[in-house]
């Protein structure tokens, strides 16, 4: 559309103005879903990070616990101690609101770390596979294919099971969180590798990569300086969606009892504990952690969904 006239160059705008004026930022500002979802994510994220400051009690400090406070319904004073808890207490007398804040901390820590790890592994392997081709590519992608045949959650369980077998029992609880991160990351890298490889194969054949090779640039600068920045937008989408999946996977594993230990309960562990009290009427012990988990996963998913549409203009 602009090819017919060689227009004189317009004055350069500042980076921020450019970004604010870009289609991407514009569609963000005009999407209520994206705005609300990112607001929820932001609030939950801050609440998790500042849990020790916000939480009225430290649920893991045995000294602050009073068994008499057990099973206090939300918002009503306890029959014995007359203490009131915003979201009630569990069987141990722990404040549910505080346990949720601390649980979310674990859930988010595991989720974010696992996605970061998966992203690093996946992006590097995907780039290497696409750039070098040949047997390196065959090997990496075959492993990815085989692993993709196995559902991520199963792979994570297996890795957890094996890790449990090789770690001495006394360290199992301490190691559990890290094992969980590695298990989820190793089950998730395939997504990144496949997407990055696919996008990088397209970029690799573009002429700007040939131009860089012609200049004499080596494989590493070409991969990371030239190709990587051009495949980041699908990676960003996958990372967001993976974060939701990782949070759910962590919750699921913890719910099954093969994740976060009871000493460091995540949202999944809290739901597992709460499930036992559902039939006896203490619904709040399950309900509030479940709602938090849903809010977290849903808003991250909504954000990912919006991001995919926004970064892929032809979908609109």
């Amino acid at each position, binding site marked *: 559309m602009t090819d017919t006239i060689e227009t004189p160059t317009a004055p350069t705008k500042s980076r921020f103005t450019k970004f604010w004026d870009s289609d991407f930022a514009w569609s963000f500002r005009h999407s209520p879903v994206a705005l609300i979802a990112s607001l929820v994510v932001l609030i939950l994220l801050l609440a998790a990070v500042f849990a020790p400051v916000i939480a009225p009690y430290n649920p893991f400090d045995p000294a602050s616990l009073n068994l008499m406070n057990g099973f206090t319904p939300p918002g009503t004073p306890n029959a014995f101690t007359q203490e009131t808890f915003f979201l009630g207490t569990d069987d141990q007398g722990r404040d549910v609101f505080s346990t949720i804040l601390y649980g979310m901390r674990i859930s988010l820590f595991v989720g974010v770390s696992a996605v970061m790890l998966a992203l690093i592994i996946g992006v590097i392997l995907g780039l290497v596979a696409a750039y070098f081709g040949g047997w390196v590519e065959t090997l990496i992608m075959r492993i990815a294919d085989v692993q993709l045949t196995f559902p991520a959650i199963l792979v994570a369980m297996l890795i957890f099971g094996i890790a449990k077998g090789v770690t001495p029992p006394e360290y199992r609880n301490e190691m559990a969180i890290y094992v969980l991160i590695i298990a989820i990351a190793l089950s998730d890298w395939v997504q990144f590798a496949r997407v990055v490889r696919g996008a990088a194969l397209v970029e690799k054949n573009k002429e700007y990569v040939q131009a860089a090779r012609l200049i004499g640039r080596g494989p590493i600068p070409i991969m990371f300086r030239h190709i990587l920045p051009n495949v980041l937008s699908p990676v960003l989408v996958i990372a967001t969606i993976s974060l939701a999946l990782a949070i759910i996977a962590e919750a*699921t594993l913890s*719910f*099954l009892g093969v994740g976060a230990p009871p000493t460091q309960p995540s949202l999944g562990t809290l739901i597992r504990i709460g499930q036992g009290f559902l039939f006896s009427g203490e619904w709040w012990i399950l309900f509030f952690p479940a709602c938090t988990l849903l809010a977290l996963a849903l808003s991250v998913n909504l954000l990912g969904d919006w991001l995919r549409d926004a970064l892929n203009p032809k979908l609109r």
Partner: protein
Amino acid sequence: MFAYIVRRMLQSVIVLLVVGLVAFSMFRFVGDPIDNMLGQERTQADIDRLRAELGLDQPFPVQYYKFLKNAVQGNFGVSYRQGRPVSTIIAERAPATLELAFVSGFLAITMGIALGVFTAIRRQGIAANVIMTVSLIGVSLPTFLIGILLIYIFSVELDLLPSFGRGETVMIGNWSTGFLTTSGLKALILPAITLGLYQMTLIMRLVRSEMLEVLRADYVRFARARGLSDRVINFRHALKNTMVPVITITGLQLGSIIAFAIITETVFQWPGVGLLFINAIQFVDIPVMAAYLMLISVMFVSINLIVDLLYYAIDPRLRVDARAT
């Protein structure tokens, strides 16, 4: 054609060998089998005897070969925890999981494809947008929460359906089925919905995005320019092209139904292999874990093989490539 199938089969066998190696390595290196099988009072003689008995003194490849030979014959050793042959335990549990997986897989595929096509065609419609939003909640809701929610509504509050177990079962040969009794069928409803719902939303979203992609293709524009009706364009031209990628992913999803059955079985205390597996993990019962791993790999690999053949039937481009070989 023949070469194509042979090549695929060969790849499948390689996959199985690799999985076998993983399973075997678990046996060999995760925990000490001797530790697991002998009590605290053991002598060096006992250890040596058992080591020779289990063949642990032989070189690694020989051990692997023996493991594979046994695995092919369905012999995975004895469960550390139950003390019974693993193959017997799995044979008892398998029908429960397979029946559950079959019903929910059927639900997920039919409903998923139908809703996916609907939401793609009526992209701007209100119904389609509502379905898409609800599906996002579906994707964000972990399977176990769906299960708990259903139990709470239909078992606790309404008291309509059982909250755990398979109900009454009938033995047909070695197969215990819940399809033939009312209580068996009633018990199946909640777990099947729980297991199928998540897969359904995934399949639906996938079908939708693939179909939208196809609807933007040049040949669809050309079909439109030739004045073909929307029905022909959507259901003949677009749907068939959509099916190519959808079949692959659906195949993978079917595999994950088996895996997600673990969660559903835990929530509903459904006596299948999934529940067995999760217990095995908690007690580090390696023979059961290894057997489960091998079993589902065989299933996944067969599903993949079938998917490849379907692919081949749908896409003429593959057929020609294969003929050229």
